[in-house]
């Protein structure tokens, strides 16, 4: 089975973000970059499916600037067979439809039976790319996937619903699945994996060459999130705090 995994590089979650003067992006200098969390699980799921089936190919596709090489090498070191790097320079596209249509052109040529992506990226947070690609390629789609079982012509997946509910569904292949974090235990690259990754193929293509639609949505301006509410801070010794809290509960919120 040929499996495509979409892997994205994002700024680390602990980072403090400053907006560029034009308001279109963040200042990247000094920021740590890493593989998007749910993409790590999507990659692991692909590697496990390949291992279970005893055959097949896993290739990753990454959109982003040169810095993404590090993340691509990491995916190859973990066991992906090869990679396609769609190169893009700032200012970055923030339109899910445009991004998906560029991915679609790359993936269509490869004709995979399965496309796996993380549920959403922690930077832009659209959570749409995998589903858009599935629709554009005429695949079945599922999101919030927490388990997969390959059957002959089908794939059976377990989806997380709201409030602790789950549901299995059987879908025709080819399929595009958006993977929820936590469904497996991602591996670390082995030393051998790191060595062989250097020899694996990374094919470069250009985002601008593939871009064939006009942007329909974009980030016009980024700004720092401000506190939404006035918070009354309760201070003092533990006893003072407790008596003030009791007063708030009884006289302000009126919990009785």
């Amino acid at each position: 089975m040929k499996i495509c995994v979409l892997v994205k590089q994002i700024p680390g979650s602990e980072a403090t973000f400053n907006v560029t003067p034009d308001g279109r992006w963040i200042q990247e200098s000094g920021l740590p970059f890493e593989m998007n969390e749910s993409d790590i699980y999507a990659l692991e799921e692909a590697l496990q499916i390949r291992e279970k089936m005893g055959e097949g190919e896993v290739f990753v596709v990454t959109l982003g600037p040169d810095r993404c090489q590090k993340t691509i090498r990491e995916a190859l070191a973990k066991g992906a067979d090869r990679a396609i790097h769609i190169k893009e320079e700032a200012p970055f596209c923030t339109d899910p439809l445009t991004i998906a249509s560029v991915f679609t052109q790359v993936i269509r040529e490869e004709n995979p039976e399965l496309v796996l992506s993380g549920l959403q990226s922690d930077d832009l947070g659209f959570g749409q790319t995998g589903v858009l690609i599935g629709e554009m390629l005429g695949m079945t789609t599922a999101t919030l996937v927490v388990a997969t079982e390959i059957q002959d012509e089908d794939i059976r997946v377990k989806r997380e619903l709201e409030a602790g509910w789950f549901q299995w569904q059987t879908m025709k292949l080819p399929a595009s699945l958006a993977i929820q974090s936590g469904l497996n235990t991602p591996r670390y690259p082995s030393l051998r994996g790191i060595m062989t990754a250097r020899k694996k193929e990374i094919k470069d293509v250009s985002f601008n060459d593939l871009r064939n639609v006009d942007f329909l949505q974009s980030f016009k301006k980024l700004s720092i999130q401000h506190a939404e509410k006035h918070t009354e801070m309760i201070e003092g010794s533990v006893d003072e705090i407790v008596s003030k809290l009791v007063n708030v509960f009884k006289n302000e919120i009126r919990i009785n």
Partner: protein
Amino acid sequence: MMDILVVLENKSGSIHRMSLEAISGAQQIGEECGLSVGILALGENASALAADASQYSVEEVLYLENENLNSYTADGYSAAVAQVISAENPHYVFFGHTYQIRDYVPRISAKLKRPFLNDVVSYTVDGGKPTFYKQSFNSKLVSELQTSGDGPVLVSFQSAAYSSENIQNGSASTRSVNVDLDASVIKTTPEEPFQKEAGGVDLSKADLIVSIGRGIGKEENIPLVQELAKVIGAELASSRPVVDSGWLPSHHQVGSSGQTVAPKLYLALGISGAIQHVVGMKGSKNIVVINKDPDAPLFEIADYGVVGDILEIIPKLTEALNG
């Protein structure tokens, strides 16, 4: 004809709470921008859902019943709703940003080649038109979104972006709509949904909630909080790490993969405030946060905040409230 079409989600025979919030948001935006609002119910018993929705102050309520929509599939729902949108041609289509919406609405966006602004938290009005905002970069930044081209814009709203309590009542007419949906479109066979653990309480109905996070430290400290909840008469809830650690069953979990709540009091003990938790409780009327870390993001949405050690405060608070 309506300018804003709100698409409802059917949650076990009633209107999903976040769909009600979307109706509330649509009424508010509609009033400010001079746009009329309509509603679409679809799936099994859509007519009953439409009858429920007709009590709100909107132009018209549409309902779509079709045997291929009785069970939810992304294949069927995306095809059907795309057809209704094309036929009605509204300026905007609103949804609550539920798990189901994430699953099928991007496919409508691809079918119609129109943008889907998802997880929107707020809007401003300029020249009679709304501009929408969403959170990005781990919710640390806010992005102003712009769209281009002609045709409907799809928008989903984050939980509690609008309050369902502000819905204006009225009386709307209902209209049946049809789509051309061949069974061959459905390439997905869903099984019956199931719950990981049976039982549990419906936290969404709770008036008072005491909720704990990682800051509770260890399982042995849980009874301290159970005692406090009992004294107040509150339900016990938690963030995901507490459930993942096995300290409480999953039906106590509040957040995007747990329950969504809006009690009169949400007392958050040792919860830092990851966005996945915040979306489940930010609609609470009064949020009281106690946390050792003064930089815990949850303080940003707190009405009352205490920087302190919950293990010291909880027993004394229980005692004082018991008196």
